[in-house]
């Protein structure tokens, strides 16, 4: 599978990164090279091999279902680019 400009634009959209036509063209070469490189894996026989998601052999711990954090609205909003009355402010979502 090789990468073309259309694929770059599609992936940029999935990634929510604005890319101009010219930038997409410039990205094709390097992205294609990386995908070509990782495709070596197709030669490895992985029949009957379980995918490994995490090397740590730990079962996720459970904790009591209690409130142990919170009451820190100021801290949560301290770095927000825009906030009002304790809420984040974003550009309009519904036209």
């Amino acid at each position, binding site marked *: 599978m090789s*990468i073309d400009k259309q694929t770059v634009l599609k992936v940029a959209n*999935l990634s929510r*990164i604005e890319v101009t036509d010219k930038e997409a063209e410039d990205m094709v070469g390097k992205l294609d090279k990386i995908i070509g490189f990782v495709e070596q*894996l197709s030669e490895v026989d992985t029949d009957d*091999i379980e*995918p490994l998601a995490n090397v740590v052999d730990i079962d996720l711990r459970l904790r009591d279902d209690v409130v142990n954090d919170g009451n820190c609205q100021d801290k949560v909003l301290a770095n927000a680019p*825009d906030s009002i009355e304790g809420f*984040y402010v974003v*550009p*309009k979502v519904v036209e």
Partner: protein
Amino acid sequence: MSDLTHLTIAQALSGLKNKDFTSVELTEAHINAMQDARDLNAFIVETPEKAMEQAKASDARRASGDAGLLEGIPMAIKDLFCTEGVQTTASSKILEGFIPQYESTVTTNMFRDGAVMLGKVGLDEFAMGSSNTTSYFGNIINPWKANDGKDLVPGGSSGGSAAAVAARIAMGATGTDTGGSIRQPAAFCGLAGIKPTYGRCSRWGIIAFASSLDQAGPIARTSEDCAIMLESMAGFDAKDSTSADKPVPKFTESLTGDMKGLRVGIPKEYRMDGTPDEIVKIWDQGIAWAKDAGAEIVDVSLPHTKYALPTYYIIAPAEASSNLSRYDGVRYGLRVDEGGNLNDMYAKTRAEGFGDEVKRRIMIGAYVLSAGYYDAYYIKAQKVRRLILNDFIKAYEQCDVLLTPTAPSSAFAIGENEDDPIKMYLNDVFTVPASLAGVPGMSIPAGLDAKGLPLGLQILGRPWDEATVLKVGHAIEQKAGFNAIPQSLLNKKAA
């Protein structure tokens, strides 16, 4: 420049204990060194006032008989660790001005033990790189110079950490390692650095790159200093679901200088075509030192080594694309709003906030996770990852540690390897397999090449056996007797 900045952490701790000097004096000396070495661009933020406050408090604690493991030692903190009230950026424009409202667990542990923070040191943007040429805050320069005097990279991604410790600005620094980001810069700067077993240090409060691979660890000038720092940094943390609930050993107690009874494995697949003679030579020298220290040498095989980098370059970008989706211009960091709708704001913010390498990796990640490709790339890579882990499990039936080179070259010039991403990725060819397997690995300074630049040797161990890794690192370090310091410091000393 003062002699206090040339002490190891172990020496400084004993000097403080003997009242030869105070933490305030030690910290002042390092603050001066930091200000004298601004040409290296190692620091994004300097925090001299915080450092002096901490040093005074440390001297008071010591006077009251209450000294911690790192009591009074000036350190640099990689700008990937959230530090309460001090800007934390991951070297990215998208986080410029971000002031964490909380402290990472690792830095909390170090401050509990008396560490003094000099400031926040730079890295490759979001820890993605091997050169420190992708930071929004500019290139970081290695204090070591080749004979031709050109500016060299400090390695990466923990390049600011390594540059600061090599330049005698900080006695030690925190690093993080996802595919070699502690070990390769340690090697490039003539330092020791250890990536512990995945799960040994809490990831809480560390800006995430690839969560199944990221591990924090120390960079310092000796294995002993790494052992002291790791003891402080490590430990169980309920706030990280992959943190291991295991006691932290007294790592310094394993440093006997002796390797009797230990079997050192030499993986034949690491003898790669095209590896420079000098790298092969230092490796063979390392094997001879290990023998000399009483170890038995055994040949082992890690058959899937050549697939480690391609596996890594699927898994790490996939996790990164997911982790970095949080930078959306809403909750923190940069927002670029040119009057469009919410989606436009996301796309413009991320286009302006991320650098080229970060964008590339997010997009590769989105690609390998997208419908139709998920099984062929992502699941396939997870399967090969298991084969790579199995290679290590099998090898450790025959040996206690593995000995390899850390990197395929010494530090290269700024701008080299930039044209071709694969060329840059190959820098991590010896370090990535252990990251995928989650096993501990360290780099120790072993010697200089013909250009006068440091070369490192890598020691890999069994899961949770950092003690043996450090023991072997320490023993080989004793044999190597590496005591060179960067030429730029000698020049300053003379001036």
